[in-house]
Structures are given as C-alpha cells and as structure tokens.
C-alpha cells in the first residue's frame, strides 16, 4: 500500500505521513437506544468504493481532516476540513 494524500494545509504528501481515522460515523443524538449505541460502536459500512473517512496529518500540521477515498484503488478524490466538504 502506497499512495499520496493531499493535506488541506500542507499539500501532497506520502500516506505514511498520515494516520487513518476510520470512516465517518454518525453519533446518535439525544437519548439513544442500546441498539443505536451498539450500531454506532461496532458497525461500519466498509464499502468497496468511495468512502468518507477521517485522516490525521501525523507528521505534518497535525490536523484532522476528511477525505473521500476510493477503497478499491486508494485514490483520494477530495479532501477538506470538517464542514468544508459537501456531504
């Protein structure tokens, strides 16, 4: 596995500079049921395709940001800070 990720601050870097933060999940609001919490804690979509995920520029600016990555080709299509990317 070797590809490049574009950090919103620093630009194109090797993926080894980054830490993977997992796919973006929706935190249940209000008073969630145990089923919802279970879902939130343990279940992921794990798609074969484009997926929105968290990345952390570990050896750079130390920013958490979001990226749309194709899990089949490791191609990073879009990156942005939280709130910047269209959902």
């Amino acid at each position, binding site marked *: 596995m070797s590809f*490049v990720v574009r950090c919103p601050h620093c630009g194109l870097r*090797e993926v080894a500079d980054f830490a993977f933060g997992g796919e973006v999940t929706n935190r249940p609001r209000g008073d969630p049921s145990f089923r919802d919490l279970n879902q939130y804690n343990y279940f992921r979509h794990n798609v074969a395709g484009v997926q929105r995920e968290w990345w952390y520029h570990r050896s750079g600016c130390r920013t958490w940001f979001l990226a749309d990555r194709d899990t089949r080709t490791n191609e990073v299509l879009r990156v942005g800070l939280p709130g910047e990317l269209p959902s």
Partner: protein
Amino acid sequence: VSRLPPQPGEVVERDQVVTFTFDGKQVTALAGDTIGSALYAVGRRTFSRSFKYHRRRGLMCCAGHCPNCLVAVDGAPGVRACTGPVREGAKVEHLNAVPSLEYDAMAVTDAVGGPFTPPGFYYKTFVRPRRLWPLHEKLLRYAAGLGRLRKAQPERTWRTEYRRRHADVLVVGGGVAGLAAAIAAAELGADVVLADDGPEPGGRLLWEEGHEQARALAAKAREAGVEILTSAPALGDFDGLVAVWQRDTLHQIRARHHVYATGAIEQPLVFIGNDLPGVMLSGGARRLVAMCAVRPGTRAVVATTSDRGVRAALALQAANVDVAVVADLRPKPSRAAARLATNGIEAVYGWTVVAATGTKAVRGAVLAPVTSLRPGAAPAERRELECDLLVVSGGDAPATSLATQAGATTAYDERVGHFRLSELPRNVWAAGQLAGEGGHRVAETSGVLAGLVDEGYDSIELCKRYTTVTMGPCHRPGPLRGDHLRRRADPRRRHPQPDRRGELLRDDDLERRRRGRAVVLVVAGGLAHAGAPERHHPGPVRRQPRGAERALDPAAADGSRLLAGGVHVSRRQARPVLRDRQLLIMVGWALGEYLWHVVADAAEHLGGGPVGAGAIAATEVQRA
C-alpha cells in the same frame, strides 16, 4: 595488451593511468575503464568460477546482466567487474576458487563428479544419515557461496539518504527512446525526471556508433529541464512509487505518468560449451570495443539470429578483429547483410553454432545447418573453425520486469519468440525496445509519442494509435504459463540440445522474478564502504530512522561465513525503503540458492524482490 587505437566515443582517458591489484598482481588501467575491461585488456579471460561445477566464467554481457564476472573489491564481494569502475589502489580479488582462479580444486566436481551430481542435485541429499549431517553441512557450507565478508566491518562514514521527488513524468531508461520521451514531455512544460543505470545516458547508442547522437540528446534533455539521474537503476515500482538507487541516495519518485524505456536484454544462444570464456554476447563485445577500446579477440566467429550479430561483425572487423564467418540462423540474408559481402566477411545463412570447443577458453566453433538439427533430420556437414572469440546474439527480449511490476501484462509473441508487453496499466507507458520497437529511429519516435501522452493523449486508444505499444500480441492475451510452455515447444526457438550445465540459459519466467539489478546492502542501510566521500545532494533529504540502521548493522548478524543470513526488519523500519514490504537482507550465493528453494513461491509473488548477489524483498518471508 589488447588496447585498440582511440575509438570514437570511447570513455577511457588515455592520459590518466590507474593502477589496482587483481589477486595481488598489479594491473594498469586507464581512467574510465571498468575492472572487467582493464583485466580483459591485459589478457585475463577467466573472471570467476561457476558455483556448482566450478567451470570457468568469462566476460559475457559486459552490461551487469549476468553473474559471470563477480569479484570482490576491497573485501566487498559480489561486485560485477564488467560494470564496476576501476579505482586507484583498489584491491580486487577473485571469488569462489581455491587456491586460484586458474587452478581450482573444486573443479573436480566438473571433471569427475558429473555422473554423481546431475542437474537438480540438491545438497539435502546428504541429510541422511542424520548423525553425519552436521559434518556434511559444515563441508557444504564451506564449498557453497560466492565470497566471504570481512568478519568486522569498518565503521561507516556515511549513510543512505532518501529523497522524495514528485514529478509529472518519470522516465526509466536513458536510451534513445527514454531521452526522446523525456525531451518531448519537458518541452511541453512537464517536470520530468529521467533515471538511467549507466554512468552516462545514451544506452545502446553509446556503443553502437551513436555516441554523438546520445550526447546531443542528453544535452537537449538537460536544456529542456529534465532532471537526469545517472548510475541510478530503478529498483522497482511499488504501487506507483518508484525507488531509484543512486549511489548513497534512494530517490523515491512519484510521477503522474511513468514512461518505461528499459530496452531489451540480449539473449544468449544455447549450445555445447556456451559457457566457455570467449563466448560473448554481441553487445558485450561491442561495449568493450567502443567504450573501453579493448580488442575482444583476434579471430571471431559470429552466430546470430538477428541483424545485431551482423552489425557486431562489422564493428569487430573495424576493430581489427578477423571475423572468420557470420552464421545467421535466418535462412536468407537480410538487407544489413549486404555490407558483410562488401567488407569481405563470409556469411552463411540457415546455419548456427552447435558447439564451442576448448578447455580454458574458446579455441574453435562448430557450425551446422539448422535443418540438420531437427529431430529425424539427416545428418549434414559441419564446419569447425578456429577462433578465440565466439560472438553470439539470440535476439532481444524486452526488459519487461519493471513494467510488469507496475501492473503491465505480457504475452508471448510467436513471431519474435519472446514475451512482449500486452496491456499497460493506467498512466504507465512503454517506449523503445521494451515496447517492441526496433531501430534507433523508431525507438526515438515511439519515445516522443510516449512523451506526448502527458499532454492530452491520455486515453489508451489514442496511445495505441500513435504508438505501437499495444499492437500485435496484445490482441490475444494468453495465460502466462501456457505461453511460457509454448515458447519451449516452439520449433523455431529450438536450438541444439542444451548443454546440461548451460547455466546461462535463462527463461522469461525467471527473468520476471529477478530484478534486473542486484541491490547492494548499502541501499537498505546495511553495509557501507568506509571512506566514501560525503556527497552533496540536490534536494532535501531525509535520514533513515535510526532503528532501521541498527537492525541492519552487520555487526549484529552472527558473522558466519555466508554472512550470516537474514536480518529481518519490521514493517515500520523498512518503510523508507520498500513501504509495506518486509525486507529480508542476505548475502552469499548459497543463501540465495537456499532461499530460492525454500521460498520460490513467495519470491514469485514479490513483484520485484531484488534477488541475486544482494538482497531480496519479500512479502511473506520472515527469517531464513
């Protein structure tokens, strides 16, 4: 001394004498010589001994492709004499022969051990009775391997640096196609890096009377802003990250487009005695003549399957070598062959070489018509000619290893009798002989077209139309294995029964597994030559993690004769070198052999572990 008068385009410097020692004897060379050419010029023909039968090995390819000329330089084994440059005061020693290269006691395995040690004979035969195995193993370990490492390594004065480089276009191979591609892309405004494994870009042009064109192209490329890395073999394509090793720097290059112009590797012919010193590939003989001004022999026989041999015969004649005959496997003279007649060289068509005679070196060649070699054919006349140089050329096989690592597929081409690229992955392009292009002119054109890809010609259909990259064989891709077998079965590839010890025989499958260039441990942060000067680096560099260096410290290894086997580096430590691949370092031929047997399967999935006298990168191997 067989030094020729100054040759056009030679790289040796006549007024600068370099002296070094070979097995304690002083050798005088010219600056620019390789160790191999310097030794050849003073009359040495045997450079090493084969590792099993201890048969003599002489210069063969002169291009760093074969293991025939491995020597130790200043105690570091596994240096290819044919590409290793001479250095003042260097101590060069032979490997693998006791007491000397000329009188090797182990050659007895060849003389009398033949019936007892057939091909495929394996040292584990001695594993029983179990009680004796420790003794056997000791003896076998002593007998096996190429060279010994020093017990204690001198302290290192420099480290392997690595450098990251992002570019628009990466061109691998600085031959005419690679240079043309680089120039075309650079002139369109692209940021281009070109990596070539030779000390000077130009590839075959340098020794095939095109040195002026090569230098002009290189100058043009530099002017166009191409970053040219010389003496920099590309080690592999790891998911688009190409590792290029240049002395003490590992360039990790990422480019939007990769142009592979790695050229072709000349194939030897198979016949009895094809491993005798004095049997040389046409490219090797021409390199000796054109670059080092060394006369490769006095009387030559040329056996060829293509025009390469024909051109080599003419070049040899120009270098004052008496060409006895050119035996062309093809039934009819080609257009290039007309010049043979005008130069008074005898040529026979539909003939090939069936044996080389001689004990210490080639003393003659036996030729026979090809038709008489088919099974069941009537015996025909044979001609035996005296010669001290047998130049062979079995055609060119595209050097596809890097492209296939990048994800390209190959298919067997019956017309030319070897594998050619069929499908290329996205953003990877092939140019020149690798793509199956022939002459310089065609290679240049295809290179230009591959360069154009950067500017909009980015669909495979367009590229297909404007280059011949995917023409021919790609339209019927077939299973690799099946093709491989077909190659074996193809009657046109049938040469006389191979000598059972013809270790030079190569097949494409092996070729793919093998890296073109053995990697010295230095690259992985291991051994280093003391006293190497600090170099100035062209860009920002990063040091390797200290852990990696420690783990690879040879002092930590157990110092046994085979150098101590595998040092396992964790995923994280190996990252700067090979990313997610685990790195297994080893030195010594026997260990290589061992690994070959044990992990042949793993090696096959490597996609490009550098195997040979150096290191192997494996995905699954843990510790050998």
